Structures are given as structure tokens and as C-alpha cells.
């Protein structure tokens, strides 16, 4: 949008003209290289549209059969969800899964299944609705990459390698959990229960993988913001002082002369990135709310279970393992999400801080700096969960303090339940 409004400077036009001829054949696009498998998984599960790669810097809308495929997969998944829901509300079919002795535990488990379903359905529905937006986001990121490549002749790193590790980890966790769950039940399970468990694992995995994908997108943005900031850093007073101290090599040295032109490009880039940041937030915020609610609940109940296990004399290693796997998975994913959100936000806000260190000699330069700073005063860059709360490092802290509080409440309930049982027992 802004690129339409702001006329490109003659030099840029020159660059663009040259690039028509100089553009290298599309080798490997960095965005797809790092996240290829993540994207494949998401495409296969119908969460992302199966887009066409038009060129190395553009993706096109999916073809008709592929759209139908996504629809079909989403439909199948939702049918299975309905199946699970039916199983959950009819008491007989999967009753074996609720084997725990305490009522509270069973209710907790039941709610957990329900929340997982909710989170997964929210993911599927919202992804289905926003499929065009996702393509737009990808295109915009690619556009930014192209601009950066044209300007600086360098391809940006993404450092999204973590997403693959996380996906593998999540899959292993889910399988492990199924095995543990099957082992935990004493009598033989019926087919319904097996299907139920499998679907539950798939739902869980998909909801979590999507969060990893969001984190990866944010990491991509963070790298781009960081690139802007490092470019601007060359103009700050401390760097300029350093340059003045080392005379001689003036060829590659950044001087203030190129500042107006460069800053214009960077402002535009920053605006584009901010828009992408906002659209990612718009796409994902509801999913994030659903997932965070689910994760919060799971962490609380799991910690509680763990606690109960430790306090009783009969330690069951099965339950202990289950608890640790759940805790590890959800904590890691939440930490990943909040870390990436926080980093992206910090980098986005860091631009104005870096720019504040640019001391232009002439009034023109000062005005350029002032304009950006004035613009950024009221511009709140925040990654929110549907406006409910801001996601950054402090979220993790808040979640854990909330978990502690609820844990205390749950323990109190448990105590009440026990003392009631004891009373009943002593009355006999």
C-alpha cells in the first residue's frame, strides 16, 4: 500500500530496472527452505492452503482440486471431532478412559478433552476462514524479502530451524502419551477408546503445531526487524564516532549522505513489517486465546496430578511420566511462543530507539528522524491475544503465578473431599 503511495526515488527505480535483467533464477527461497516441513505438515492437515509457487518471491492462490482437498481434510477432521464429542457425552463408550478413583480428577480430565477439542476446532475453523489472509501474509513477507534483496543484495536468514525440532518433539510426545494412556488402563480397551485416543492426540498435535508455526512466523518478522535495526545502527552517533576515528577506508563506510534515501526505504519497510505483524496477530489471536486457555488448564491439572502423586505413598511411574510429558510439552510451546512474541515486539520497538541515536548535522536529517519518532510515539506495537492480554515474557510469569494460585485452591478442594470421606468413614 505504502509502496504505491510513495514514489520510488530515481535511484531505486534504477535498481529495479537493473534487476529485471540481473535477477538470479529462483534458487531456494529462504522462507521455504527453513520451514518446508512445517508448511508441508500444515498444508497436509488442511490448516494452510496448498498454494502455488509462482516465482521465488511470490505464491499464488491454490488450484481448485487443492482447495477441495483442503476442504475435504478439514471436513474429515471436524467429523472426527464430532465423533469424539459424541463419545465424550455418552457415558458408556469411553468410560474405561476415566479410570481414576476421584471424581474431581475425572471431571478435570473430561474438561481437558473438551478444551482440547475446542482449541483444535477453533484452529481449523479460523484457518479455513483466513486461508486467503495467510497467502497474503506469505506474499507480503516474500515481497519484503525481495525488496531487501534488491536493495542490499543479501538474503535474510530466518533461523526457523527450531520449528522442525518442535514438531518432531510434539509428535514423539503424542505417541508416548497414547502408549502411556493405553498402558495405564487395566482392562482391555474397546475400539472406540482407541479411536478416541488417537483423534485426541491428533487434535492436540495439530493445535500445538500451529502455535509453533505462529512462533516461526514471528521469528521471521523478528529477523527482518533486526535487519532494519542493524542497518540503522550504522548511522548512530557512536558508530559515526568510531568511523571518524579510523580514517582511510572511506569506500564502504556509511556516511550520513546516504541517510535520507536509506531511511525512506527503511521507514517503508518498517511500516510493511508492522502491517504484517498486525495481520499475523489478527489471524492467530483467537487461536492463541483458545490454545493458551487449554494449555493453562492442562498445566494446572497436570501439576495438581503430579502433586497428588508425589504426596501419596503409592507412586505410579506411569502417571508421573504422563505428567512430565504434558508439562514439558506445554511449557516449552508456551515459552517458545512468548519468547518469540516478546522478541519480535522488542525488535519492532527497538527501531525508534536506534533511530533516536542518529544525530543528523543538518535540519533535514533531524526532520527525517523526528517524523519517524513522532509517528512511533502513539504507535503501540503489541502482540495481543484477541486484546485480552499482551503476549510477551511476562505472560509466562503471569501464567505460572496463576497456576500456583489455582493449585492451592485445588489442593484445598482435595482436602475437603478427603476430610469428608474420612468423616463418612468414621461414622460407619
Amino acid at each position, binding site marked *: 500500500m505504502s509502496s504505491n503511495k510513495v514514489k520510488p526515488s530515481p535511484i531505486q527505480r534504477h535498481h529495479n530496472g537493473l534487476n529485471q535483467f540481473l535477477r538470479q533464477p529462483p534458487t531456494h527461497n529462504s522462507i521455504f527452505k527453513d520451514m518446508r516441513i512445517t508448511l508441508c505438515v500444515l498444508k497436509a492437515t488442511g490448516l494452510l492452503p496448498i498454494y502455488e509457487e509462482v516465482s521465488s518471491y511470490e505464491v499464488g492462490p491454490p488450484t481448485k482440486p487443492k482447495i477441495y482437498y483442503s476442504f475435504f481434510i478439514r471436513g474429515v477432521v471436524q467429523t472426527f471431532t464430532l465423533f469424539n464429542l459424541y463419545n465424550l457425552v455418552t457415558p458408556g463408550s469411553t468410560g474405561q478412559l476415566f479410570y481414576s478413583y476421584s471424581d474431581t480428577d475425572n471431571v478435570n480430565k473430561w474438561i481437558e478433552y473438551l478444551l482440547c477439542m475446542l482449541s483444535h476446532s477453533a484452529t481449523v475453523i479460523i484457518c479455513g476462514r483466513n486461508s486467503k489472509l495467510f497467502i497474503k501474509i506469505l506474499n507480503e513477507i516474500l515481497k519484503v524479502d525481495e525488496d531487501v534483496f534488491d536493495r542490499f543484495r543479501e538474503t535474510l536468514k530466518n533461523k526457523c530451524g527450531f520449528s522442525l525440532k518442535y514438531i518432531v518433539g510434539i509428535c514423539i510426545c503424542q505417541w508416548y502419551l497414547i502408549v502411556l494412556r493405553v498402558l495405564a488402563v487395566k482392562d482391555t480397551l474397546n475400539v472406540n477408546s482407541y479411536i478416541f485416543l488417537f483423534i485426541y492426540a491428533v487434535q492436540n498435535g495439530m493445535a500445538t503445531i500451529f502455535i509453533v508455526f505462529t512462533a516461526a512466523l514471528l521469528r521471521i518478522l523478528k529477523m527482518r526487524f533486526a535487519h532494519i535495526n542493524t542497518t540503522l545502527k550504522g548511522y548512530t*552517533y*557512536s558508530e559515526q564516532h568510531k568511523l571518524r576515528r579510523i580514517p582511510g577506508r572511506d569506500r564502504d563506510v556509511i556516511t550520513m549522505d546516504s541517510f535520507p534515501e536509506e531511511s525512506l526505504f527503511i521507514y517503508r519497510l518498517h511500516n510493511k513489517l508492522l502491517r504484517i505483524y498486525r495481520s499475523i496477530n489478527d489471524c492467530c489471536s483467537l487461536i492463541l486465546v483458545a490454545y493458551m486457555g487449554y494449555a493453562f488448564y492442562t498445566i494446572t491439572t497436570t501439576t495438581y496430578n503430579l*502433586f497428588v502423586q*508425589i*504426596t*501419596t*505413598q*503409592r*507412586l505410579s511411574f506411569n502417571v508421573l511420566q504422563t505428567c512430565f510429558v504434558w508439562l514439558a510439552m506445554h511449557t516449552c510451546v508456551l515459552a517458545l511462543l512468548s519468547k518469540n512474541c*516478546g522478541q519480535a515486539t522488542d525488535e519492532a520497538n527497538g527501531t*525508534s*530507539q536506534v*533511530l*533516536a*541515536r542518529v*544525530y543528523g548535522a543538518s*535540519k533535514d536529517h*533531524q526532520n527525517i*528522524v*523526528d517524523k519517524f*519518532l*513522532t509517528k*512511533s*510515539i502513539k504507535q503501540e506495537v503489541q502482540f495481543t491475544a484477541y486484546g485480552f492480554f499482551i503476549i*510477551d*515474557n*511476562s505472560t*509466562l*510469569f503471569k501464567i505460572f*503465578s496463576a497456576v500456583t494460585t489455582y493449585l*492451592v485452591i485445588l*489442593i*484445598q478442594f*482435595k*482436602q475437603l473431599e*478427603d*476430610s469428608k*470421606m*474420612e468423616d463418612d*468413614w*468414621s461414622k460407619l
Partner: protein
Amino acid sequence: MAHQTVQPILVHFGTLFTFCKLLGLYPHDLQAFRGIHTLQSSKIGTAIVVVTMLAVVVLYNLLIYFFSSEDHDLKASQSTLTFVIGIFLTYIGLGMMITDQLSALRNQSKTGELYERIRAVDEQLLKENVYVDISKTAKNILLMIVLTVVSELIILISTYITLVDLTDWKSILWLFSCFPTLYNSLDKIWFANTLSALKQRFFVINTALEDMVESHERLKRWTENGGDGGGQIFRRPSIANVSIDPSLEYLYKELTHMEAVKAYNMARNKISPIAHSLNSFGDALETPKKPYKYTSQPPTFNMVYESELNKDIEKVEEKLNNLCQLHDEICEIGKLVNELWSYPILVLMAYGFLIFTAQLYFLYCATQGQAIPSLFRSAKSATITTIFLSYTAGKCIYLIYLSWKTSLESKRTGICLHKCGVVADNNLLYEIVNHLSLKLLNHSVDFSACGFFTLDMETLYGVSGGITSYLIILIQFNLAAQQAKDASNAAETNYNTMLTTEAGNTTALMDYFTTTFMPYAQTDLY
């Protein structure tokens, strides 16, 4: 003047450094510190720190082992969870010390750079004719060390004499119970003094700006008085000389009930279009004014009242620019300090919260005649508890307070800068001030513990609220458990004589957590 050098701030850290080095807290090179007052990393120092750390860990564990045999009956009936939490509470002090030492090792090379940067800032400040008085640092450090040592000794000796069994030679191990907190306090003294050095530099910058304002005001008053008769105001030629008729000034005074200087400014604001657009005031002043330009040289005795704001505008700009850059540099140093000490601060806050809650709870338990873990025996005496708590709380609160004050001080610079703009009151300066204040707005120094929470008064309030509510919850648990136990005891004596023996077994279970979860520990027995 030409070769005035600044003393590095580390000169005043001598006592503290020697003390830390002696105890094996910091790994830096002693010779380099003595000689040229810099912190250099040294391998021998690292080895010493590691050895000290290991030694303290081993001795502390011995202490725990020795004293835990005292509450053997407590431990025998303890559930696994109680055991885990007990370990956690016992070891958090040790963990804190290890964190301090490890981060000291990790930051070895960076701390030297930090103080080098502070020295560079001091040099720059001196170039701007701003002198930073660091003579008080040594006194502050000494005071803090004395306070720390005195409180540690009081806690240690009083606990040792009144509450530890002196006849056993192994009780000498109790000495090591104070090591973790002592190490931690020394590290935090180091941090606090670095922080207050930064705060002082912010303060100095603010004072420099305010001095400029004051001298300018003085000059202005003097010129008004001096120019009374002729109605002339002498100005240096370089600034935009816009002044108003003295009679009009009188009118403003009547209308606005403001002092002359202020009204004067408002009038000036009206004239300058940029200033007008950027300031909210000046609407009421519709009177047309004729700008007079006096290019005549001021009289010689004007030198008595010299104002920097009246000098060549470029010089003023340069000075303000430099101050702004220094402000930024100090902010960056602040961020570095925060980063270097982020983990120790986080652990200290966690420690403060947990220990404060635990100590108060055990105090309650002790007053109720219940058994408490042997390592928290100081809770048996209210006086020692008070001293211990004020010592711990003092440490935490002082750090939070200092961080808060530092970031407030850094934010005040913008206000001081604007005062300059208002008092000098000319277009060019206004533009500079606006430009710089936008920059200042983006210099942020917020002290936080690893980004989890910021260190300010709000957090302090939250933490104290948290301590209170958890204390209430714990006491409630304790009461409920006591009640349940009484009830079950009564029931058992009535119905089943065989079970009383088991219940008698559990009467020793009066530990903090065991009592809490006793009901189902009993259910399991049944």
C-alpha cells in the same frame, strides 16, 4: 583544565573488591585492580571461585546433613512432597550464592568493559564542564558492608548461642549457614553501588540542565532590572532577539497574575510560529507586538551573569546534543548492568519472597508449639526473626527502590530539557529541544528481572500482597489440619484403640507441609 583526568569509579570499590576477592566471590585479577583500577578476567581467580563454590557447597550440605538428623522423627513421617519442598526451601539460599558466583564468572570480561564505559562517560561529562562527585561512593560501600556484616553476625551469633546445641563439636558447622546470604549481599552491594553511580550521573546531567536554566533566569532578571530606565534589553546578537515592550509586560503581569519571567515567555511564544504550534499556551495573548532587535553589544559587566543559553546557538545545540548522547550512553550502560545481573536479581527476588513467607509461617508454627525444620530454627525467637526479615527485606527493597529511582531520574531529563527551551525561548532553541526530547523519549532504561517483571514500586506492592495472601492460606491450611487431627484423634480414641498407636506416630507430623496434607496420608494408611 586541559589535562584534568577523571578517577575511575572502581577506585572507591577497593574495600568491597578486596573483601569479595578474599571470600572468593569475584574472579577478577587483583593485581590489575590494585594497579590500574580495571577489572580483568583471570584464570587463577576463576579457579579460586570454583574451589570456593565447591567448598561452600560441600560444607553447607554437611551442615544440612548434620542438622537434619535432629529432626529425624520429622523426616521419617514426612511425605515425599514435603521432602521435595523442604529441600527446595533449604537449598534456595545456596542456589542464590551459586547463581551469583556463576554469573560473576560468566560476566568476567563484560564487567571490566562496563566500568570502562562509565569512566568514558565521566570524561565526556568533564568535557562539558560537569564534574561528577564520586567521593561518597567509598563511604556508602563501607556503610553497606558494615551493615551487612553486623546483621549477619548478629543473626549468626544469637542463633548459635541461644538455639544451637553448643556441646556438640559438629555444631560449629552452623557457621556456614550464613555464607550464602553473606556472599549474596556482597554481590548486591556491588550491584547497588553501580546502579547508584548511574543514578548519580543522570542526576548530574539533570542538574547541569537546570543550572543552565537558572543562570539564564538570573541573567534575564538582571537585564530587566538593568534595562528599567531606558526600557532596553540587551541581548547577545546571535540569538533571535525578540523582546517586548516593558509596559506590555506590566499588562501581562496584571492580566495573568504571573511572575514577570513567565509572562515574558508566554508573550514570546506568541511571536514564534513554531513554538506556538507546539505549545498549548499563548492563545489569550492577542496583542500585536513589535519585535525589537538590539544588536548593540551588552555592557561589560554582563559577564557577571553569563548564561550558556544565551551563547551562540550552535554551541548550545552542541552542548545539548552531547548531554543527550551521554544520557543515551548511560541508559545503555543501565541496560548492560541490568542484563549482567538479571539472573541474580531474579533469584534474589524469588528467595526474598519464599524466605519471607516461610520464616513468618514458621514463626507462627513456633508460637503454636509445633515443630519446625531445624534449618529455620531462628524462627523460634521473634527478635532474631525480626532482624533476619528486616535484613532480607532491606536488601530486596533497597534494590527495587534504587532501580525505580534510577529510571525516574532518567525520565526527568526530558523535563529539565524543556525548562531550558521555555526559559531561553527562541525558535531555534525550541526546535532543538523538540528534536532532542523526542530522542529522550526513546531512551528507555527499565530494570527488570529477566523481563518477567519490572523492578518498581508496583512490583513491591504486588509481592507484599502475595506474601500476605500466601501466609493466610498457609495458616488456614495449618488450622484445618490441626482441627482434622484433633477430630480424628478423638474419633480414634472412641472407636478404635489399635489405630491410636498410628495416630500417635503421626503427632510428630507437625511440619509445615505434612500437616497440610495429613488427611489423605492417613487415608492411605487405612
